[in-house]
C-alpha cells in the first residue's frame, strides 16, 4: 500500500479516525466528544502546516513539477479510475485554510446542543470531503469528495439550524446537487474525450491536460456544464440564492465551514477543472461568465446594503466576494488568479470570523436583526472589536487580508489587454465603496450608538473558547495582510500550466 506512504492521504484518514473516535464516545460524554474533536482538528492544523513546510522544501530543492507528492493507485481498474493524489501551491494554501477553519469551527461549536456527538460526526464527515477534494487530482475522486462535502450540510442545517431551517436546508442541498448534476455530466463528457483515439481513457486531471484531446466543439458544451456546476457552489449570480437562506439558518460553525471552505471548492474546481482542462472554450465563452461574475460582485454588495439580518448581510457580501474570486479566475493571467486564491483565503477567514462573531452575538442577544440591537460595543467590547476588525478586513483595510487580495485582483485584471475586461474591472472596483457602505452601516447600527435593548446590558463578553476561535482567525487574517508575499510565492507558480494552456489556444 504505497498510498499510505504519501502524507496527503492522512488529510482524509485523520478526519475518518476522528469520526471513528466520535462514534465510540458516549452520547452524554460531552468532554470526551470535545476532546476527540479538538484532537482531530489540531492534528489537521499541524499536518497542514507541515505540508506547507514540505512544499516549500520541495520547491526550494528545485522540484518544479506541476504537483508534488503525487501518488496514483488504481481503484476501479476497468474504468481506469485511480485514487490520484497531488498538491500544488493552490491546494496547499486551500488545505491550510480548511484546517484553520475546521479548528476554529470546533471551538465555535463548543456548546453545541443538542446531540453534540452527531453534530461533530457530520462536521468531520464534511471536512473529510473538503480535504479529499483538495488533495485529489482524479476527476472521479474529486467529484466523490465534493458530494461527500455537500450532503452533510442538509442535516447540519436541518437539525441544528435555526429559523426556517428545513426549507433552507432542502433548498441549499437541492441547488447544490443540481449544480453537481451539471458537473457530473460535464465530467463524464470530459472522461470520454480524455485521451486521443486508441489510447485508454483517463480521469487524471494532469494526464487529461497533457493529452489535451477534448475536441473544441465538445468544449463548448462541457465548459459551461462544469463551470456552472462549480459556479453554483461559488455563489455565482444567478445561482446564489441558496446562500442567504442557507447561511441564515445554519448554525455558527456550519456557516463558518460553508462560507469559509465549501464555497472555495467552487472557485477551486472552476480553475482546476473547467478552465485548466478546457482552455479553448474558456477563452471563447469566458466573457459570458465574466459578465455574470461581474454582476454578482456589484449585485451582492448592493443587496447587502439593505438587509437587516446579520447573516443575510454576510451571505450577500459572500456573494460579492466569491464573485470576485470567479471574476479574477476568468481573467486568465497569473496575477489575477493569484489574487483569486488570496481572495479565497481572505474571504474564507474573515467570513468565518464574521459568522463566528455573529453566532456568539446571536447566542447572547437571541436576535440577528440589527434594528433590535445597538451599542453592543459598550457591553461586549471583545466581540465588538473583533467585529470591527472583521469588517475592516472585509472592506479592504491595508494590513488585513482583504486589501491584499482585492488589490492583487484589480491590478491583475486591469493588466489584461482587452478593453472589455478592463472596463469590467473598473466596474468591479466600485464594490470597495459599496462594501464600506454596508459594513459601516452594520457596525454603526450594531455596535455604536446607544444601547437599544436594556436587557442587553446584562450580557457577558466572549469566554475562553470563543476568544480562541476568534483570535485564531484574526491572527490569520492579519498575517496574510501583513506578509502577503509569503503566500503569493507559494501560489503564483501553480498557475504556470493553466496560463500556458490558455495562451496556447489564443
Amino acid at each position, binding site marked *: 500500500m504505497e498510498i499510505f506512504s504519501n502524507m496527503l492521504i492522512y488529510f482524509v484518514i485523520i478526519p475518518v479516525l476522528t469520526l471513528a473516535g466520535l462514534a465510540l464516545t458516549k452520547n452524554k460524554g460531552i468532554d470526551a466528544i470535545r476532546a476527540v474533536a479538538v484532537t482531530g482538528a489540531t492534528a489537521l492544523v499541524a499536518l497542514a502546516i507541515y505540508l506547507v513546510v514540505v512544499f516549500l522544501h520541495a520547491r526550494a530543492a528545485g522540484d518544479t513539477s506541476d504537483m508534488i507528492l503525487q501518488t496514483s493507485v488504481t*481503484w*476501479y*481498474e*476497468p*474504468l481506469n479510475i485511480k485514487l490520484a493524489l497531488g498538491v500544488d501551491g493552490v491546494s496547499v494554501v486551500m488545505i491550510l485554510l480548511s484546517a484553520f477553519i475546521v479548528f476554529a469551527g470546533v471551538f465555535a461549536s463548543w456548546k453545541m446542543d443538542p446531540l453534540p456527538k452527531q453534530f461533530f460526526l457530520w462536521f468531520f464527515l464534511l471536512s473529510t470531503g473538503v480535504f479529499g477534494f483538495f488533495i485529489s487530482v482524479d476527476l*472521479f475522486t474529486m*467529484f*466523490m*469528495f465534493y*458530494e*461527500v462535502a455537500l*450532503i452533510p450540510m*442538509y*442535516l447540519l442545517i*436541518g*437539525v441544528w439550524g435555526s429559523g426556517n*431551517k*428545513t426549507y433552507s*436546508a*432542502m433548498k441549499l*442541498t*437541492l441547488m447544490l*446537487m*443540481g449544480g453537481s*448534476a*451539471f458537473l*457530473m*455530466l460535464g465530467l*463524464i*463528457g470530459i*472522461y*470520454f474525450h480524455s485521451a486521443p483515439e486508441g489510447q485508454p481513457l483517463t480521469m487524471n486531471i494532469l494526464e487529461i491536460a497533457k493529452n489535451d484531446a477534448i475536441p473544441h466543439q465538445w468544449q463548448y458544451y462541457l465548459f459551461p456544464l462544469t463551470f456552472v456546476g462549480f459556479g453554483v457552489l461559488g455563489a455565482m449570480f444567478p445561482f446564489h440564492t441558496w446562500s442567504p437562506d442557507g447561511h441564515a439558518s445554519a448554525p455558527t460553525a456550519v456557516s463558518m465551514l460553508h462560507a469559509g471552505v465549501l464555497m472555495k471548492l467552487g472557485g477551486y474546481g472552476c480553475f482546476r477543472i473547467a478552465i485548466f482542462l478546457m482552455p479553448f472554450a474558456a477563452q471563447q465563452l469566458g466573457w459570458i461568465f465574466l459578465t455574470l461574475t461581474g454582476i454578482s460582485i456589484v449585485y451582492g454588495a448592493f443587496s447587502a446594503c439593505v438587509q437587516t439580518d446579520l447573516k443575510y448581510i454576510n451571505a450577500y457580501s459572500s456573494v460579492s466576494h466569491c464573485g470576485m474570486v470567479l471574476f479574477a479566475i476568468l481573467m486568465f493571467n497569473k496575477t489575477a488568479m493569484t489574487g483569486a486564491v488570496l481572495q479565497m483565503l481572505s474571504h474564507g477567514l474573515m467570513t468565518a470570523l464574521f459568522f463566528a462573531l455573529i453566532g456568539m452575538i446571536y447566542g447572547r442577544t437571541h436576535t440577528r436583526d440589527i434594528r433590535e440591537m445597538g451599542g453592543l460595543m459598550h457591553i461586549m467590547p471583545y466581540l465588538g472589536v473583533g467585529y470591527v476588525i472583521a469588517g475592516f478586513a472585509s472592506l479592504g483595510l491595508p494590513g488585513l487580508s482583504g486589501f491584499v487580495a482585492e488589490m492583487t485582483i484589480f491590478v491583475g485584471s486591469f493588466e489584461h489587454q482587452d478593453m472589455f475586461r478592463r472596463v469590467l474591472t473598473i466596474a468591479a472596483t466600485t464594490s470597495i465603496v459599496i462594501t464600506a457602505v454596508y459594513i459601516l452601516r452594520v457596525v454603526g447600527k450594531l455596535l455604536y450608538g446607544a444601547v437599544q435593548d436594556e436587557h442587553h446590558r446584562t450580557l457577558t463578553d466572549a469566554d475562553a473558547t470563543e476568544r480562541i476561535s476568534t483570535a485564531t482567525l484574526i491572527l490569520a487574517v492579519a498575517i496574510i495582510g501583513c506578509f502577503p508575499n509569503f503566500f503569493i510565492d507559494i501560489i503564483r507558480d501553480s498557475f504556470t500550466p493553466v496560463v500556458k494552456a490558455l495562451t496556447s489556444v489564443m
Partner: protein
Amino acid sequence: MDYSQFLMMPQEIGLLVVFLLVFLYDTFMPSKTLKGLPLFATIVFGIFTIFSFFPVQDGMAFGDMFESNKATWAMKNILNIGMFIVLLQSIKWANSDFVAIRRGEFYELMLLTLFGMYLMISGRHFLVFVIGLETASLPLATLVAFEKKYYESHEAAAKYVLTAVFSSAIMLLGLSFVYGITGTLYFSEIASSVQGDNSLLLIVALAFLISGVGYKLSLVPFHLWTADVYQGAPTMVTSYLSVISKGSAAFAFFVIMVQVFGAAYAQIWEWMLYAIIVITITVGNLFAIRQRNLKRFLAFSSISQAGYIMLGVVAANAVGMASMMYYILVYIFSNLAAFGVIAVIERKTGKVTTDDYNGLFKTNPWLAFVMMLAMFSLGGIPPFAGFFSKFFIFLGAAQTHNVAIYVLVFIALVNTIVSLYYYLLVVKAMFIRQDECAIPAFKSHWTEKAGLIICTLGIILIGLVSCIYTSLSDITTSLTSMFSMI
C-alpha cells in the same frame, strides 16, 4: 439423452434440493418443530448461497435452450444474496400469527419463484424464458395474497394476477409474431434470421415483448400495478418483488435485447428504450414525491430506479452490463435495508407512513441510521454504494457516443435531484421533525438485526471496495460472443 448436461445447471439443482428439503421438513416434521422451519430454510439457503459461489462450467445445454456462463452464474449469485437477506428478515414475520400456519408455503413458493428467475436468466429459448417468467410471477400472486386477514393483500393480489396474465398474453402475442416471421424461438437463430429486414410486424412484436418484460420491471406505462401491489402485499413479499424479480427481469431483458435484437434492431429498440426510460424515471419520481405510505413511496422510487437500470440495457455493451449487474446488487442492499426497517417497524407498531417516522432518530437511532443510509444510497450520495452504481451506469450509458444519450443522461441526472428531494423527506422526518407520540423505542429480533447489518455493510463497503465491480466487469468483458453482434 446425455445426463451430463445437468452439470451445466448446478445452481438450479441446488435450489431444487433446498426446495425439497424445506418441503420435506414442512411435510414430515412434527408440527411443534415447525416453528423452526423459517430458520431451517434460511440456514439451508444460506449454505446453498455459499456453495453456489463455486464456479460453473460454461456452455449450452438441452439443445441450446439453456446457457450457463459467468454472467448468469454471477447474476444468480446476486439474486441468492438478496434472497438470503429476504429470508433472514422474514423469519420473525413468518412465525407471527395468521402467517404461522402457512409458513411452509411461503418458503416453498419463494424458492420456486427464484427457480423461475433462474430459468429467465439462463434460458436461451423463448419457451424456457416464458416458463421461467410465469413460474416467477404466478407464485408471487399467491404470495402477495398471503396476509389472509387483510383485504388490501387480496385486492393487490387480484390486481397483480389479472394484469400479469394480461401482460403475458400481450407478450405471447408478440412472441407469436416473432415465431411467424422467423420460424424459430431460439435466441441465436432469431438473431441470425432477422438480419436486415425491419418489417412492421417485427416492430410490433418487439414493442409487445418490451411491454411484457417492462411489466415485470414496472417500466412506465406498464407500471401501474406496482404501487398498489407493493402496498397491499406483505412487506417481505414487497421487498422480494422490488429487488429480486426486478433484477432477474432486468438481466433477462438485457440478454434478449442484446442477443436477439442486438444485431439489426439495435437502433430501433434503443430509441424505444430512450422514450421509456425518460418517462419511467420522470413519472416514477413525480409520483414518489407525494407518497406518504412508505411502501407505496418505495414502489415509485423503485420504478424510477428501474429506469436507471435500463440505462445499462441501453448501453448494450460490456461496461453497461457490468454496471447494470452492479447497480442491481447495490439496489438489492439499499432497498432491502429500507424494507427491512419498514418491516420491523410495521411488525412492531403497524405504522408505515412517513409522518409516523417523525422523531424516529430520538427513539430508535439505529433503525433511523440504517434507513438514512438506505435513502442516501438510493439517492446516490457518496461514499455509499448507490453513488458508485449510478456513476458507473451513467458511464456505461455514455459509452455509446451519440448526443441523444447525453441528453438522456442529463434528464436522468436532473431526476436524481427530484429523487434526492423525496429521499431527504424521509431523512427529514426521522431526524429533523419532532413528535411527542413518536414510535417508542423497541428491540428488534436478532434475525432482523442481522439482515439490516448485512445490508448496512453492503451499502458502505460495496462502493469503496472496488473488487466486486472489477470482477463483474471482467466477467462481462469475457462475453465476447454476446456483444459481437452489436
